[in-house]
């Protein structure tokens, strides 16, 4: 019997395969049924030390749809951090005001520190360049919806694999499901050694290539990430690679791909996916975005112990 009551959601590394599957199952239930008062009387504190409107609103919406209430802040100006209070002290005090903390912070590992400091569950809503686990559950849920089974898939990761934290966590998560992974990126934006190392420890089969055409025919899922101009030291470098990693309807027409290939993207997109792609059978990213609420509802309800 799986119970996630009081579990922190900090890093996808903390989740077993069974726990991941359980969360996906509850997410499916949340999408079908409305549960307007299972979190009645519960308070969520949204502590956003770094602003992020979309993520904050998605947690707020999920909490309110289940009957809970939300307090919080989204800029440092009004917090005592400005007065020099330590993060540990701040969260220990806030712990007394709420039942669950959702934290976004500019320092890597801030949510782990918070979880170690308080007794109530803590959800990492993104800390620095490291993890953003709730997005990973959204991605997994979208994959499960697209393919009905997430076991034994061939998954391509395209674009900026160096800084794209959602690609990192998704690769970790899929390592539980016997995925074949293809990392498609320019040499300067390859998957960092740390992540490759974790995958090797887990005996994942992976291949690194520079062009999607080398592996396109194998893929069941193509996970795109943003390629950001700011990541390149030289603007010419960016201009050189951006076209190579830009998907459009005509690019897809020119590639050998499986008919039931599905393309995912954590959104927002910049240049890497043309709008012409939206009308193709491959596009799944808007459905993926809409799963954000039921998946977050499932996470909140399970760690608050109202679903067992």
């Amino acid at each position: 019997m799986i119970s996630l009551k009081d579990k922190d959601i900090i890093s996808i590394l903390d989740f077993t395969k069974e726990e991941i599957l359980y969360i996906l199952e509850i997410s499916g239930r949340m999408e079908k049924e409305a549960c307007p008062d299972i979190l009645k009387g519960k308070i969520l504190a949204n502590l956003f030390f770094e602003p992020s409107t979309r993520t904050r609103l998605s947690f707020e919406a999920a909490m309110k749809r289940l009957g809970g209430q939300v307090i919080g802040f989204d800029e440092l100006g009004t917090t005592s951090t400005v007065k020099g209070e330590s993060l540990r002290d701040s969260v220990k005090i806030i712990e007394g005001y709420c039942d669950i903390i959702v934290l976004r912070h500019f320092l890597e590992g801030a949510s782990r520190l918070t979880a170690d400091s308080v007794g109530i569950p803590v959800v990492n809503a993104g800390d620095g360049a490291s993890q953003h686990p709730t997005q990973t559950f959204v991605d997994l849920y979208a994959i499960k919806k697209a393919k009905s089974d997430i076991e034994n898939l061939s998954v391509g990761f395209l674009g900026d694999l160096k800084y794209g934290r959602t690609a990192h966590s998704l690769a970790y998560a899929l390592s539980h499901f016997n995925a074949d992974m293809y990392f498609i990126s320019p040499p300067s934006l390859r998957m960092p050694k740390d992540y490759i190392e974790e995958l090797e420890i887990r005996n994942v089969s992976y291949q690194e290539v520079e062009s999607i055409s080398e592996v396109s025919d194998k893929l069941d899922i193509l996970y795109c990430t943003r390629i950001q101009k700011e990541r390149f030291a030289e603007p010419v470098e960016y201009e050189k690679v951006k076209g190579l990693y830009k998907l459009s309807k005509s690019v897809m027409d020119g590639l050998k791909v499986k008919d039931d290939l599905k393309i995912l993207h954590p959104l927002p997109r910049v240049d890497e996916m043309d709008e012409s792609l939206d009308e193709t059978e491959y596009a799944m990213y808007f459905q993926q975005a809409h799963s954000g609420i039921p998946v977050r509802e499932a996470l909140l309800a399970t760690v608050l112990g109202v679903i067992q």
Partner: protein
Amino acid sequence: MKKLEVSAIKEGTVIDQIANKSTFKVANILNIQKIKQVVLIGFNLSSKKLGKKGIIKIGGKLLTQEEVNKIALIAPDAKVNIIKNSEVVKKFTVNIPDIIEEFMKCFNPNCVSNHQNILSKFHVINKNPIRIRCHYCERHMGADDIELV
């Protein structure tokens, strides 16, 4: 008795087979500056196994396995000899612990452990070669990245 390259002590601990370049780091981790008794440090000594090695001899203090494990990251091949009455009475090797706390700094400048007043903490993910993961930011470090606090 064979001639010792670094001279003898009556009672204490000899740490032998220290990876040469880690000799002074080992001394730091074990906080040897604070010891009142004789401490002998050998550096650039010749060794069949390691090429060059370091030795640290600490008079009066008998190190425990737990204390010695702290140096596992930087001197995994070290051998520890407990000396009593000028004789080796016990030998042990270092064990790499699963969790390492306190004496190291995370090399990620944006890691929360470098900005808040907390102890660092690392999980050992591979023992040979040694790789550790920061408990907070989850970045990986190897022997060369290790910096002492």
